[in-house]
């Protein structure tokens, strides 16, 4: 019953305006980036060509070349991540439809299924367009191209240091395409947790105006950037974009990212569990 209800809610959320708008905005950015790449790199010799995964929209490596779309993505992400499922529960409160489902499922089970559905919906919306770009790049650019947008040589010590700072760098060295898929899944996973966190917060605190639900994740992500202002270049980065984008060459600590995501996921479950004990009328 729990999984059936979750599946129903996922399919319902995926067809809502918020999820569709976020999906099409991301798809537009992905296709613009892909078309830009095709126009810029068509006819280039394979020796001069950059690695097809390093020119992805999600690639931090793009800041060495032309990162207009990547900047747009990083700037819109704190707003977009709330759109697919963040408002799901608040809308149902306002419409009063939650009472009907609660009477069939039970309060706690209903909210838990909603939390899972919010996570999966946001994960899907923030993964599928980027997976499509990986596929498009694989069929459009030479797979044996290996250039880096910094134009550093393979045996350059700066390049080796930069690669050593990638998350899962061992995977990148052995299978760069698999690394791109794993990195995209990690990005979608983090987005899913942000979306679910917003939904969980709305279950605990009743907010009259949905716009205020943008605030928690928006503030948190911007705080991570503010905390990094003025830090020395060799210091571990706290910025969300430098931690979640692929091929990020700045020093990072995976435990910090894992802890933040775990705390957000655990607090989301805790908030939903606590709110599940409340009287829904």
């Amino acid at each position: 019953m729990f999984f059936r209800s979750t599946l129903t809610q996922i399919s319902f959320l995926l067809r809502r305006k918020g999820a569709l708008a976020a999906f099409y905005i991301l798809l537009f950015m992905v296709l613009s980036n892909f078309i830009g790449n095709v126009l810029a790199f068509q006819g280039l010799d394979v020796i001069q060509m950059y690695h097809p995964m390093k020119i992805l929209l999600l690639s931090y490596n793009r800041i060495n070349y032309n990162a207009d779309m990547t900047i747009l993505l990083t700037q819109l992400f704190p707003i977009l991540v709330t759109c697919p499922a963040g408002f799901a529960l608040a809308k149902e409160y306002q419409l009063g439809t939650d009472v009907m489902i609660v009477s069939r499922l039970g309060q706690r089970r209903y909210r838990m299924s909603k939390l899972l559905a919010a996570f999966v919906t946001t994960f899907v919306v923030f993964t599928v367009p980027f997976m499509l770009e990986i596929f498009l790049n694989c069929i459009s650019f030479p797979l044996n191209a290996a250039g880096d947008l910094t134009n550093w040589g393979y045996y350059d010590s700066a390049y080796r240091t930069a690669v050593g700072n990638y998350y899962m760098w061992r995977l990148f060295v052995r299978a760069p395409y698999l690394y791109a898929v794993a990195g995209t899944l990690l990005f979608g996973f983090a987005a899913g947790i942000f979306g679910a966190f917003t939904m969980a917060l709305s279950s605990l605190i009743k907010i009259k105006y949905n716009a205020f639900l943008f605030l928690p994740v928006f503030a948190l992500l911007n705080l991570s950037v503010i905390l990094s202002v003025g830090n020395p270049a060799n210091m571990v980065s706290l910025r969300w974009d430098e931690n979640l984008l692929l091929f990020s060459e700045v020093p990072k600590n995976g435990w910090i990212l894992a802890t933040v995501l775990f705390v957000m996921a655990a607090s989301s479950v805790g908030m939903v569990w606590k709110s599940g004990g409340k009287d829904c009328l």
Partner: protein
Amino acid sequence: MIRYRLRMLFLTGVLGGISLSVLYINPYGGEISLSEALLQLSGSRGDFPMGFAMTEMVSFSLRLLPAYLFELFFGIMLYRHFCTASIYIFSRYPKRVRWYFRECLALGGGALLFQVLLVGAALVTAALRYRLYIDAGGLLLGLYALAIPALWTYGATLAVNLVAVKAGSSAGFGVVAGFQTVCIVLFGLEDTLRRYGDMVIEPEGKLLRFNPMASLVMGWHTSGIEVLDRAVHAPYRTMDFNHSLALCLALCLGILLAGAWIIQRHELLKADSETGV
């Protein structure tokens, strides 16, 4: 409600100003002129005007964070009357457009007070940390640094309210904040054209002139007043302070009039914008 709004206005203005000052006002030798402090508050890094690199655009967006918070908190100021008890409210105000203009005036006062608090708190914090001295260009720049962002914040907040009346508060904030973000990213278009246009296209800041967000970057402006022009030393000769002020004023006026039309024609009995029922 008025007390809550004032509290949020002071919080976002003063705390925003202090944090912007700590993060972005950094003189080299322990002393800073008023004009340089104001330029650094609006995107410049040290003596250099804002560039088009990813880090600079991100830091410019962060400088706008207090304004975004203002837009979020005050983006429901007019809209909330259309959510609950709208018929009760408007049965007492049969001349709805007059009510709208009165609310807009209050919102305008709020936006101006917010900008004064933001810049004031930033400068006071800078004066406490460094030796801040007042230069002639700085005083003139200060007037523009208050007027242009205040007008922009006002127009954006009003737009959030109006989109919210039609599509709900989340859409209101999402659309307006998204538009501002796109405008910031479009700064890079200028740079892209220069780099990849085989030098055939030499925009020299012409595109920035039509980007409303560019008017918030004081370091890109020129002026006919020599002392102000020398204080700013802009890289382009196409953006003028008076032009930006006129652009923001025209945008505000456009949004204000469009708002009057929307408010007058909005059907009160049709639906609650927030819930859709």
